[in-house]
């Protein structure tokens, strides 16, 4: 029984970080209808950015968070102008393939530079022990920082003019254009934000688990599952979806061989897509 509770708590902690990753994906999807298949690469970039900052420049791990957020934002904006801007308004097939292609290039370059071996960022934090179970300090801090970032996103979206503009463009781009909002700038800004969130999530994940250049795919897939659960374009839904996924993983692992967890995830994914194409917590109107 205790074991189940411990797994659930741990699942929620890790799940919130999945939620953070998915927030970036769902924001871009919601604002411009683009499924960003570079999402996985952005997550991995965050991981390797932290690795470089801690090993080459000896920056203490968590201090790198603002750097990665800002860096991710700039990269995201650049990515928008290179691969996405030309294709807005063209068939969605093309944008999908375009971001997919960029993903291949980034991961391929990463592989060429770092190989596909395992990397680890040594972060030691005292954990919290409860009965015979210990919750690693890194998991707890990652969840806490996720909450902070999510809170900041909320404030931005609902209590600033720029945030309002983003929501307006997400709702109806043409109307927003007519209302005088510089939509192109908002689109690039949103893309930048989405990549920044993905990078930050990657950084937090790298403090908890080892990673490879190829790890992005797995987390990208998890982000899709979370987005399917939480609904398109709904950052709060993404967080809830992430926690839900973490819960499922932790809970399922207790009652069946751990190797079945992946199967459960994918079945869940396909089912949710089929039954709730707009997500279980869908807010966005068609």
């Amino acid at each position, binding site marked *: 029984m*205790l*074991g189940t509770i*411990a797994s659930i708590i741990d699942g929620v902690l890790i799940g919130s970080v999945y939620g953070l990753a998915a927030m970036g994906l769902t924001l871009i999807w919601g604002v411009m209808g683009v499924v960003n298949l570079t999402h996985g690469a952005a997550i991995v970039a965050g991981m390797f950015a932290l690795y470089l900052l801690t090993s080459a420049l000896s920056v203490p791990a968590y201090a790198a968070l603002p750097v990665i957020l800002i860096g991710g934002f700039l990269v995201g904006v650049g990515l928008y102008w290179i691969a996405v801007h030309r294709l807005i308004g063209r068939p969605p097939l093309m944008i999908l393939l375009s971001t997919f292609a960029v993903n291949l290039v980034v991961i391929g370059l990463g592989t060429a530079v770092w190989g596909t071996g*395992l990397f680890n960022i040594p972060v030691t934090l005292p954990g919290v022990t409860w009965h015979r179970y*210990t919750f690693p300090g890194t998991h707890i801090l990652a969840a806490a920082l996720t909450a902070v970032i999510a809170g900041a996103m909320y404030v931005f979206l609902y209590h600033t003019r720029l945030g309002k503009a983003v929501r307006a463009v997400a709702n109806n781009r043409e109307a927003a254009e007519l209302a005088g909002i510089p939509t192109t700038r908002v689109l690039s800004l949103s893309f930048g934000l989405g990549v920044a969130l993905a990078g930050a999530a990657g950084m937090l994940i790298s403090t908890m*688990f080892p990673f490879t250049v190829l790890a992005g795919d797995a987390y990208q897939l998890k982000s899709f599952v979370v987005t399917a659960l939480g609904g398109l374009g709904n950052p709060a839904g993404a967080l809830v979806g992430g926690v839900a996924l973490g819960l499922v993983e932790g809970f399922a692992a*207790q009652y069946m061989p*751990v190797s079945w*967890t992946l199967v459960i995830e994918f079945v869940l994914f396909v089912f949710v897509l089929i039954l709730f194409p707009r997500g279980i917590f869908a807010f966005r109107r068609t």
Partner: protein
Amino acid sequence: MRNLLLLAAVAAFAATPALAADDETLTVGMTLSQTGPLNIDSLAQVRGSELWRDEVNDAGGLKVGDKRYKIRFASYDDQSQGGRVQQLYTRLIVQDKAQFLFSPYSSGLCNTAAVISEQYGRIMLITGGAEPKTYTLGNKYLVQTITSADHYLTGAINALESKSPHAKIAIVYSDDPFSKAVATAAREQAKESGFNIVLDESYAPATTDFSPIINKIIASSADGLIGGGHYADGATLARQVYDQKADLKFISLLVAPDSPEFASLGPAALGITVPSQWEIQATYKPQIGPAGAAFVTAFEAKFKAEPDYHSAAGYSGGLLLQHAIEQAQSIDTDKVIAAFNAMDVTTFFGRFKIATDPGHHGLQVAHEMVLAQWQKKNEKLQREVVWPKAAQTADLIYPLH
């Protein structure tokens, strides 16, 4: 198309060291995992083979009748993926004209490479694959030099039995052909020894988050943990078991703790045991080839690093091939395989003898494993041989902490 292939072949050939015009060349083909999760273990294995090749060439080459053969390696990167292996081995035989083959690293890749050995009739020295199933398929040209997976955890189980006869153990292993074969045999042996198996599960090889399964280990109140997989997952599991304070009295993990890299885990490495094909302290008296100490010295001089059992296995593969060719006085495949079938010889790596019945041809039957444990000696972390008692250099520390 042919021009491209030709170009690639010339480029590959040009990249290998120039050979004297009047020497004959013996080409040995192999793939190695220059990239991918198997990279660390594969590199160690290839280094052993390279040391052998250079020693033979420096001594003038292999002597066969009137001819002297210089050894040349032809190799490609399999990227730790089975999908490329068959294509690459076919290329090694058909294009690079490899006369003999060395295996890749890991049972999964060895199994897929073995098919090419049989299809094209080339002898393959298996120095990196322990799974026994491959030898039941009717192959005639495979030669395994290392102990098969069935016996990997026998030593660990016997060692634990000597300290705690009715211990509760958790068997947690990577879902890959090698680890599965080890776990299957270990399960039987554990039951026969009277252990209580309280947890028995596999995890996906690419797992990086072991917390759910570690929570299950804690919940099961296990005294001992056996299993693991290869370096990447084994090292991660060891680290997270330590971080989550799983409070185990005995841990035995496959492969990972045998790598010198494992020391980088620091306190998490202390007390962990590993079934090993060979340790530096091993005292086998060789009938052919160098003594253990000589091998270690030569390896350290060439690579500035300590050899582990993968390197020793890689070296022994070359050494045994050399011996078989010298016994057969020919490089003809059928004559050499006949020499292998008749061989029963001891090298610094241990004893060598393969099964010759069609149901198990090529399976290694004479080589034995030892159990090593990471202990602190003079404030330094190093491995000591703790089992069997006849070969030990230190006592098993039980419980771990």
